[in-house]
């Protein structure tokens, strides 16, 4: 019993440490995959519950980050397939009229994010996933392949195609030129 309790303590500590260091980045990765921020936290929470249930299996994986991201992507894909409800039509617009109080810097940041979001939306789901894992989560090609359950060659081809799409995106071109 003592050995079991000690193992559980170690698992708990490891999991909590993993969450502490990875939670923000996983949530942001989910946003870049296409979630709203609220959805992203839900998706990551569900993914981490899945990981926690089998934490010893996660620990034993050759590449923990790739494994967790694989769970994250699968959870995200499932959430997209089963998205429960979208926005409802309403007589009342949610934002106050006029939109005052938005400063220029904030607006520029919004435009940047908007441009990145729109650019990502032009990618297929697979291309988007590979871009986010490779260039935001900073997984290697091999790790990305593990995370997506595809050969490394497929990762390369998807990245190549995704980069072509993004390179041709006028809003991203403008953004780069402005910097």
């Amino acid at each position: 019993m003592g050995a079991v309790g000690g193992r559980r303590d170690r698992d708990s500590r490891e999991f909590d440490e993993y969450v502490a260091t990875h939670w923000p980045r996983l949530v942001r990765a989910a946003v870049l995959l296409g979630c709203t921020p609220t959805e992203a936290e839900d998706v990551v929470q569900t993914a981490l519950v899945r990981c926690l249930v089998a934490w010893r299996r996660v620990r034993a994986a050759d590449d923990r980050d790739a494994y967790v991201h694989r769970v994250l992507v699968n959870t995200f894909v499932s959430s997209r397939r089963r998205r429960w409800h979208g926005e409802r039509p309403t007589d009342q617009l949610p934002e106050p009229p006029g939109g005052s109080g938005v400063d220029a810097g904030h607006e520029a940041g919004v435009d940047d994010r908007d441009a990145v979001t729109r650019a990502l939306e032009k990618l297929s789901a697979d291309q988007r996933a590979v871009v986010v894992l490779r260039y935001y989560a900073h997984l290697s090609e091999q790790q990305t392949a593990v995370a997506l359950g595809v050969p490394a060659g497929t990762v390369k081809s998807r990245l190549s195609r995704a980069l072509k799409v993004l390179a041709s995106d006028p809003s991203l071109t403008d953004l780069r030129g402005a910097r």
Partner: protein
Amino acid sequence: MTSDESRLAALLEGSGDAVEVGPAPYDALWEGARRVRRTRQRRVFAGAVASVALAVGVTTALGLPGGDDPLRDPALALGPYGDLPPQVAAAAEDSLQREAEVAASLDLPADTELVGFDGLAVAVPQGWSRDVPTGCGTPDAVVALSDGGDVCRASVNVLSSRSTVATLDPGDEDVEELAGDPAADDALSGLPSDRVTLDGAEFATTGVLCADDGSAVATATCEVSVTALDRGVTLRLRSSAEPAEARRELEDLLDGVRVLDDDLTAVPVGPGAPVLGLTGASGGDVARPESLQDSAEGSVDLYSGYLAEGEAAALAEGAPMPRGGYSPSVGATSYVAQLRAAGLVPRVVEERAVPAAGGELIGTVPAPGAVLPRGTEVVLRVAAAPTTPAEAVRTEATYARPDGGSATVDDAALRAGATVRVRVGGTVAVSGYDVRGYARANLGGEVDGSAVRGVDDARVATWRAVARGTSTITVTREVGGYSSVVGTLRVEVVG
């Protein structure tokens, strides 16, 4: 990395950094895992192969949208059925009559109706909506009748009507891989150790557990599970009402548990149930072969959740379900098999549905959970093939709100004619997805007014607000030279 890759990484980094992230929900994570393990333990204990979750809430107390919500997707309102198409109503008339006769023959509490699962049923107040068996997600109705897998059961939040929780697919190999040995993690679980007699049968039960007495019931105020010992079926009842009210409701529901005679059965819910009211596909995975990603639009035969071309007609004529070629996850094929296994007879009726792919399952009448005599027909509402390009896609508009956030307008709202507000310089983009949830092009539109202007964009139809005022975008989809209208967006542009 090349310079382009580095720039892209920087852009993503900046975009990600702008997302405000709340603190990690450690307690919810651990509680979720405990629930998963507890559920698995119960399964092991009871030998159950499935269970039904009956989430109970109070519309008035919590402001949850109920079955009579006028904005509610009618396809989800399975309890009262809403306005059925005439051909569906006619086909289901006899079955609905049989359902009513069964209810009348049982000694049910006043003003209740039966929701059944695999030999058991519970009397719930009339008018409670039976939410769809989509598995995970926050229920959009008062009663959720679902069986979406262990993690789903752990995560469904009955306290909030708005948050979205991701699901895992029952039967998903990855889930099985992650599940590990359920007996290995034993200490976090509690078995239903008490015994209770309900409707003359012996059940194992957890007893009513409530948060206010220290029990771990993170997503409800109170909950109770009962497992029929003679058949290994577990009912899980949860309430989000105030503690005293929740206890009373759960006790009432336990009083309404019925053990069905052998000549009765229930319309199945569970892993094989159709994804009702949704247009997203149920099969597929990010790891599917490239060739499938690029398959022709409308080709859904390799994905479950739909009947392949010609299959609906064949089924209607009594043909056996074909084997092979389908995803093993949720789907029409497995659902028909479940119906037959439950002793019910599938009857396919086509109807118009937008957006939908031909052959997509829209719902069943009587609904999942209905208690019927064996041999009763259950109508499978199957979507007829779309007649215009616009009907074949689910659309979603995204726009930059004046306060800096972003928002979406869903397909139904767009088709009904929606109004959005953006600042000068902001954008409105409309994406189209096929029935499998993959992005599709060919959306465009005409602008009436000078407040917005189209952005030259090959893949996502986008308009930018260029001046104060109001413009109306008529969103269209063109395929093969034939253009059809999806809906309209009235865009109010503010300074």
